[in-house]
């Protein structure tokens, strides 16, 4: 269960990037540069295809400021003979924005619970819960409908894995 050196390094890198990006956006704000697109609505619910939840997920996000957000994505996949449950809370920043188009950076921990079902009477299957970290970055188009396309890096006991995702969401006041 203990995180590997790679996952720790990835988590540190993700948090460092988040801090740098957050500082950059705060500096831009202090200079009076336009960063955010929409002052409201401030909530977002979305569906993920691939992405933080694995193959699919649902997420919720709240803008904490013009360029900072917090959210979480969840997924429950009942694959054949296997169940995968994941939770991915994250902090997000928007270092670049132009009109409805924005670039985002999300980072946070990830918990994944897997349960293997076995039909063999001599083996009941097994289950485990593992923790890791994820860093994702990509493009967002935000209006009433929100579209995202992004790449991500997941780190955990098993090392690093590249991944990708597409999100479609709805802004809510």
């Amino acid at each position, binding site marked *: 269960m203990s995180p590997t050196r790679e996952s720790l390094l990835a988590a540190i890198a993700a948090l460092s990037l988040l801090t740098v990006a957050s500082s950059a956006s705060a500096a831009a704000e202090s200079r009076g540069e336009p960063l955010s697109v929409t002052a409201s609505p401030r909530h977002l619910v979305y569906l993920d295809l691939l992405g933080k939840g694995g193959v699919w997920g649902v997420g919720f996000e709240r803008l904490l400021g013009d360029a900072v957000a917090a959210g979480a994505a969840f997924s429950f996949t009942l694959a054949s003979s296997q169940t995968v449950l994941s939770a991915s809370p994250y902090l997000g920043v928007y270092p670049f924005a132009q009109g409805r188009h924005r670039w985002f950076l999300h980072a946070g921990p990830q918990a994944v619970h897997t349960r293997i079902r076995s039909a063999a009477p001599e083996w009941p299957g097994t289950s485990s819960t*593992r923790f890791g970290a994820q860093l994702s970055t990509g493009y967002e188009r935000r209006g009433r409908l929100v579209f995202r396309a992004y790449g991500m890096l997941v780190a955990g006991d098993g090392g690093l*894995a590249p991944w990708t995702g597409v999100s479609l969401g709805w802004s809510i006041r």
Partner: protein
Amino acid sequence: MKPLFAATLSALLASACSLPLGPPGAWVDWTEIDGPLRPEVSPPPTESTPSTRLRIATFNVHYGNDVEGLIRVLKQNPRLATADVLLLQEIRSFPEESESRARRVATALGMGCAYAPARPHKTGTHGLAVLSRLPFESVEIMELPRATIAMGTERRIAMAVELRVGGEPLRIVNVHLDTRLNIGDRVGQLRPAIIDAPPRVIVGGDFNTNPFVWTANTIPDARTLAVADSDQARALDVYMGSLDFENPTASLGATVPLPLLTVHLDSIYTRGIAQLGDSGVERSVGISDHWPVWLDVTVDSLQSTVDGLCDARGVPRRSDSESPARRQAEESLSAHPDS
């Protein structure tokens, strides 16, 4: 938004569907199989001196299209050239070629050959083979439970040969399982081929124990590589352990040349056998999309097999329930008291 919602819901429901595995077949002696999938069996040209020491190798040869190249690498590799038993997967046979590819390899290596087609392919067949320096006492084929997989439903088989090693029978099972299975289904596909195996048995082949969780047996959740415990090779070792099998090849690392990933698809499991200790993956053999895996074994007597499944006080090692292997060993011993 209604069509989008419906499409999303359909995808989620599809991912939730469990995989239907067909019923397994029974072990069938090769002589009872007729038609285009009839196996071919030829004895070794010269019988090896009976010994209790064997080198077993398994190799997915990726169709064996370059038969001469395959023969060359097998002959040039000192580990493989001295193998007593070679388990081959994904080897093909075509009537327009002079003889089956498995037999050509076997002849070149001075081994006997049992080739079992799993399914027709173009004008020929695609299947498994066991090459052996010892004569075959029997050759049996079993159709494994068929997994209904989008763009990938295929007939899969296991083949079992019986050799006489040190005066006693040794069963060797060769399997090639589906790729896009989750571990529970993989166990379900393998189980019929091993559940009734005798106490002394070797099971080898391409188990396709990839490190992914598959959604709808189509989409690999690559994210689980890093975070989730999705290593099917390790999980299959645990399952085989419940049947008293060991996997002396478990720690050998990757058996396929993939960048960035360490994927252990090919293994050799043993039960009722004392391992000599030498095993390896021949990563210099680059003729296939797999590397050959080999293992040296010594074969115990049946009495040793029973004893090996008990502790020093004679108590079965498994305390949770009766060991299937021990029960079978005792039954076999009482049926053949001379062993």
